[in-house]
Every structure is written in C-alpha cells, then in structure tokens.
C-alpha cells in the first residue's frame, strides 16, 4: 500500500469514527426532552382519568420545562432554539400550578426566538404557534380549575338550600323550593374577572388561529387550535352562567351576555360552530 493510500485510509477512519459522529446518532437533547414531555403527558392524562393526584407529574413537567429552557440558548441554529422553547412552553403549560412561574418566561423567550427567525413564524410554524398558544392555554387552564371550584361551591349552596327547604313546611317550603341556592354576591367580581380573562385568552388564541392561514402548518393543527378556542369559549360560558347563579348576579349576567355572543361569533367567523357539546363530553376538571 502506498503512503498516500495509508494517509487517506487513516484520515478516512479518523473522520468516520471521530469528527462526523454520524454512526448511530445518540438521542439528542431535544429528542430526549420531547420524549419525556410526551411520556409525562400520557402519564398525566391517565392519572387524571384515574382521579389520582397529578401534582407529582406536574412537578416533573415543570422540570422538563426548566431543562428545555436551559438548553434553548445552546441550540445549534435558531430553529433549534425555538424547538427547545416549544418543549418548554408546552411542558410549562401542562405543569399547571407547578409551571405558573415558568410559562410566562418561556413563552416570552420563545416568542422572541420566533420573531428572530428570518421569516418569523413561517420558519417553524408549528413550534411558534404552540409557543404563542401555550400562555393563553395555561391561563385558561388555571381559570378552569378555579371555575370548577366555584361550580362545586354553587352545587353545595344548592344542596344546602334544598336541605333548608326540606326543613320548612307548607307555603314556606313551596316558596323555598321555587328558588335555588346561589353563590354569595361576594363571588361575583371574581366570576366576572374570570370571564374577562377567558375572553382575553380566547382573543389571543383566536389571533394565533387567524395567523395560521399564513403558515404551512399541517391540516390537523387548525382544528386542534379551534378545539382549544372552543374549550376557552365554553369555560367562559361556565363563568358567565355562574354569574346567573350568584346573588345579585343578574346585571352582570346580562352585561356579559353580548360579550359571550361576540366570542361565539368569532368562532363562527372562522368556521367553527359555537357548540359546546364536544366539551361537555370531555372529562371535566382534573381533581384538585
């Protein structure tokens, strides 16, 4: 073998084994974090279905968000940075209360990373859209949990009222049964705020939805985004409805009614029926 061939082969072997490292690529960090996110998400869903405590899993999801946030600045190219923030944003959203302090930070950083792409969201349509949706969805999820609490409180008030009616006799009892137990008026401002917050999140999610028209996202991304908007809308309906179940809430109920209709119209304007039937069949709130 001539010396040149030896040099060539040595270089060949060195490069193949060392520099390029494309043999069996090890699972890279992004892939690993993504896999963890998917796995924990599945665990979260089954835990909720079983009615068990989801807090430990949400702690782990928060950790995934922290890890992804830490990795993001080290991404090889800007799209990698965005991808890490997408993992961080979705994980922080799914972490629920454990991710409350993270979600705003990682979605802000993620949005900045998306804006820094040469063609902005067009360069990473799914990732940027998910980053932009994560904050409104995290906020709405938090409100949904509080609404669920209020609904329980309202149901308790109704039950208490019914028990009270049972203790009464004659006309008093009849009059009592003709009415229903309500939440105290003190809850009204919170209900209104929750409605308004949901209205705001609905607006943000709808803005993302409108922006999808200019992005090359997969066909299923749009209906999934619409599903989130419908969930927010239906939760807003719950908040709106609760005002009617609150002492002195009629005025607020009537005041919020056109705003509820406006949300329904925005849904319809994007081709989505304002029909909460699919939300009603969803598993309701996770256990607290």
């Amino acid at each position, binding site marked *: 073998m001539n010396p040149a061939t030896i040099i060539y082969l040595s270089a060949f*072997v060195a490069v193949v084994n060392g520099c390029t490292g494309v043999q069996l690529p090890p699972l890279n960090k992004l892939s690993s974090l993504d896999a963890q996110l998917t796995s924990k998400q599945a665990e979260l869903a089954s835990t909720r279905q079983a009615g068990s405590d989801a807090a430990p899993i949400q702690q782990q999801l928060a950790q995934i968000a922290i890890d992804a946030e830490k990795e993001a600045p080290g991404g090889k190219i800007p799209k990698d940075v965005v991808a890490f923030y997408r*993992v961080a944003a979705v994980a922080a959203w799914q972490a629920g209360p454990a991710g409350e302090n993270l979600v705003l930070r990682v979605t802000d950083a993620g949005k900045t990373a998306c804006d820094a792409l040469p063609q902005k969201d067009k360069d990473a349509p799914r990732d940027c859209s998910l980053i932009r949706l994560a904050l409104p969805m995290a906020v709405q999820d938090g409100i949904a949990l509080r609404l669920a609490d209020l609904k329980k409180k309202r149901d308790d008030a109704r039950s208490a009222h019914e028990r009270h009616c049972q203790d009464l006799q004659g006309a008093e009892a009849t009059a009592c049964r003709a*009415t229903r137990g309500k939440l105290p008026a003190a809850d009204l401002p919170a209900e209104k705020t929750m409605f308004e917050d949901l209205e705001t999140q609905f607006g943000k999610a709808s803005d993302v939805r409108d922006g999808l028209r200019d992005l090359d996202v997969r066909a299923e991304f749009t209906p999934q985004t619409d599903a989130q908007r419908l*969930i927010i809308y*239906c939760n807003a309906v719950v908040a709106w409805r609760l005002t009617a179940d609150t002492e002195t809430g*009629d005025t607020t109920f009537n005041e919020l*009614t056109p705003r509820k209709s406006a949300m329904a119209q925005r849904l319809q304007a994007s081709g989505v029926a304002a029909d909460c039937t699919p939300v*009603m069949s969803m598993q309701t709130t996770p256990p607290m």
Partner: protein
Amino acid sequence: MDPELILFAIRSLIRLGREGAAAIDQYERDKAALFPNGISAGFDRVDFITEAFIPDHRELLQREPLVALWRDNAPAPDVPGAEQTLFAAAVQLKASITKATAGSPERALSIGGAVMIKQWASGKGPLSPLGRIAITIADIGLEFVGTNPSVLGVGGSGEKLIGGLAANLSGLIPDDAEQFGPKTQFAERAIGIFLRAGLTTVSEQSGLLLRKEDLQQLVKNSLKPVIDALPANLAEQSRWHDVTDALLGPAASTALAAIAANPRAFFGHDFDSSTAIGALTQALLGEASKTGLTNQFSQGGFIALYKAALGVVAERPELFLGRADKPAEQIASDLLSKVTATLKGASPPFDSDLGIDLAVTVLDTLKSYGPAFIDKNNPWENVVGLMVLQVVNGLKNGLGAGGGGIKSLLSRRQLTDLAGIFLKQAAQTPDMFAGGNTELQQIVQGVTQALSHDTQLLLTPEGWLAVASAVASEALANPQRLFNSTVPGGGIGVALISDLLSVAHAAGGRTQGSVLFGPTLQEAIVTAVRAVAGNIDAALTNRAALKDLATTLTNLVRTNSGQLGSKEWLFLYRVLIGRVLHGGAVGALENAEINQLLKGQ
C-alpha cells in the same frame, strides 16, 4: 494518490457527516410533537341550555311550552323534569342551527385527546432529510470536478457512477425514510461511502471503462442488499455500521476495478453476476460483523478474501448463480462463514490473515482451474475452508507441537507460499478431495516433517519451496505412495529426504569440502523423490543403499575436489540411483567407472 484527492475525501466526509447530523436535527425538530387540550371547567347541561337560548333565542324560553320551565335564568327547580326538557329543547335548537348552517363553512368540532402534530404541512417545509442527502451527494460530485475534471466530464466514469447512484436512489430509500429511521441514516452513510470509494477508484484508474447501465446494475444489486440487511437490534446495527465504514469503501473499489477489468464477466450474459457481487458484499459485511474487525482478521484480510471470491464470480459465475439448491446470497454467506469459521479453529499463525491468504490461494486456483478437484456431492463453498484446514493440519503435524522450527526457517510470507504450493497443485488435481480424501494433509505433513529435519539450514527457504513444489507434484501424481501418515516415519518420501539431509549434515557442509547443500541438495532431493515415486517397493528395500549412494558420492567428490564438483555429484546421482533401485548397493566406485559414467559410456 493525488494529495488533492485526500483532501477532497476528508472534506466530503466531514460535509456528509455534518449534513447527516443536520438532517437528523431537522428530523428531530420537525417530527410529530404533542398538542394537548386545555382543561374544561365542567361544562354541564344547564350551561348548555343557557348558552343555546341566551341571548339569540331567549324568546323561546318566554313562551309555551318552555316558559314554565325557565325561571330566574335557570331551570325552574320546583318543576320536575324541567332541566331534562330544556336540555332536549336546547339540543334540538342546536341541531336546527347546524342544519340551517349546513351550507356555510361553519363546522362542529370534535375534541379528542391530545394530538401529535408534525411541524410542517404535507409537502411543505424544508427539503426532506433524504432530499438533502441527495443534494449533498451531488455537491460532493461537483467538488470532485474541481480536483478531477476529467473523471466527471461528460461520459466520464465518475459521471456514470453518480448517474448509476441517482437512478437507483429511490430504490435505495428504505421503508423507514418517513421517520428518518436507522435504515435511512444507514443508507445515507452507505451511499456516501460508496460514492467516495467509486469516485476515488475511477480517478486513480483513469483507464477504467465502465458502462452506465452496468454501474446502475451494480448499485442496485450490491448496495441495496447491504442497506436492507441492516439488523434491527441496536447493538448489531452498531457493528454493521462499523464494518460498513471500514469495508464497504474498499469493497466497492475492488468491485469496480474487477468490473472494469472484465465487464463481460459481470454483465451481459445469462447470469447477472452483479447479483453475486451484492451477495458477496453482504456476506463480507455480515461475516466481519460477526467476527469483528480486529479480533481475528484484519480489514485487509477480509478485503483480500472478498477480492478472491469476486474473481471466482467473474470467471465462474455458475458457481454462485443458477444453482437450484441455493441462492447466491446463501452460497456467498456459506463460503465466507465456513472459511472464517475453519480458520478461527486453525492452529496459529494460520488463524489470522495468514489463513486468509491460503483461502485466497484456493479461490484463485478455483477461478483458474474450476472445481474439478472437489467432490461433486459436496458443495464447493463448503470445501474451500476444509482444503485450507488440511494444509494447516499437515503443517502442524509435520512440525510437531509448537512448530517453532518452521517459523524460524520460513518467513510468514514463505510459509504462506509453502502452503500455497500444496493448495495450488492439489486444486489442479481432479477428485483430490473426493470422498473426504485427506491425502493433501499427508503430503503436506510428510514434506514438512522432512523439512523440519533441516536444522542446519542446508537449504534456503526458496530451495525448500522449490523442493516442496516438485515433491508435491510427484506425490499428487502418484497417490498413496510417497507419504502416508499412518505408517511410522510418514512414508518413504519422508525417509528419503531425511536420509539425504542426514548425509549432507554428516558431510559438514562447504567448510568440509562437501557439495551437498543448497541447490545441489535441493536437486538431489527432487531427483530422489522423482526416481522412487513410481517404484516404492524398490525404494523401501534399498533405502539404506540409497543413503549409501549419497554418502559415497559426497565423499568421492570431497576427496577428488580437483576433478569433481556439484555438477558431477548430481550427474552421478541421477545415473546411479536407478541402478541402486534395481540392483541394490553400488559399493565402492572406482575412478575408471566414474570417468566412464561421466563420459556417458
């Protein structure tokens, strides 16, 4: 090799590697990711009723039949069934609205669980990882133009090679391409290695004339089986990658050179011999993957074996193709696995590349002379290793335990040559291995046994090789006569050679005025073996007389050093050996008789 070419190869590798890594990163970024659902606050039937009627259809709640059921913005609590009735009415209302808007783009949503969604719409987004690899390959080709413009010129072999690859690219794409799975990653690597090796080969051998369709066929038949054969198990995949990185390039170069040397041998006849190239390449990688690249044989050893087998394909394609009992893949796999398995069990140093060299000798001989030496009932691919083993065992037994003597007498190369001499001759002998015949082993053992008696190095290694060649030829031409390991001493052949060595040793070599060493001794041995090969009984009867003849002549030449030398010794030996075989000892030789003999009277 052109230094530019070296740089080119390195740059190409780095870029392919970088591009491959980038493609993987892109795959990781863009693969399906989770899009979860938000949480519902527990939307219930009363929420549904309220949302359905208020505000747009509030009037329905203010008239019959619902008016009594709705009070204070809620179902009347004291009217039994109010909520159910209102809910049914709300469902009906929603259904009628849906019906009314059937023509509009508005649609009802269904909400399932979280969904996995890829980054890009189908057909949109950046070039697929495979597309990127294809472009990189083209890019490498373009860079090659810079250093070797003639190779990639129109009609150049390089252009044909890239054309052959491009034409098969879709066929080479594995079934996990969509997921950019291990096979696709491996295909990318294998294609790159093949291209680099191919371009380098055609560049180095500018005279190579390759046809585009032949190269297309080669790529299809040789690269695809290798890609398809990537194992499923991760550890095996890793080994497969290693051996491919190390061996596929040299194998591709070897195959291209073989095809260029004799294109008709591989293409354009009844057998598509390029199929056998694919089978061999796959078998080579499979065997190297099993054995390891450093444990037993070197990369050079594997490639030498591959090259020899390729030679058989070129000259005798029928040995690989068109056999009813076995496909080419199985024959190639059996050949390499049996050879390597046999060698692994052979005595050192033949359990290494030295053994491979012997197998190569057998294959080369098989290529030239055909399989006549092999038992018709035993597939040839099973016999190659066994032949080598007979020689190796013969050497081992002939030398005794350890075999230290022969290693000090013969270099590694000479040892291989010695074994090769036997193998070459045996492979030219019809039915040599019929019925499990072990005659070859006996001959090798006999010659080696005799050779080991040369403790004073009276013959040079080359001399011994010449002796071995002549003796092997006589022994093979006269079966079961000269060497027989079942008799004490190993047969008359061993005895004769040993006796001559003994006489030469006793004569004391050139310092004592003896001529029986070196070429004279070599010729004497050959003469003796040839003389007795057809007359074993006489040789056995007159063994002592034959030895005496050598002694007498040696002494005679020494004492008459002024008139007699090595030429005379040999002449007299050739003349008198027949007399001894027929009439026994010659006794003392008078000067007059010697002169008469030398004069040819």
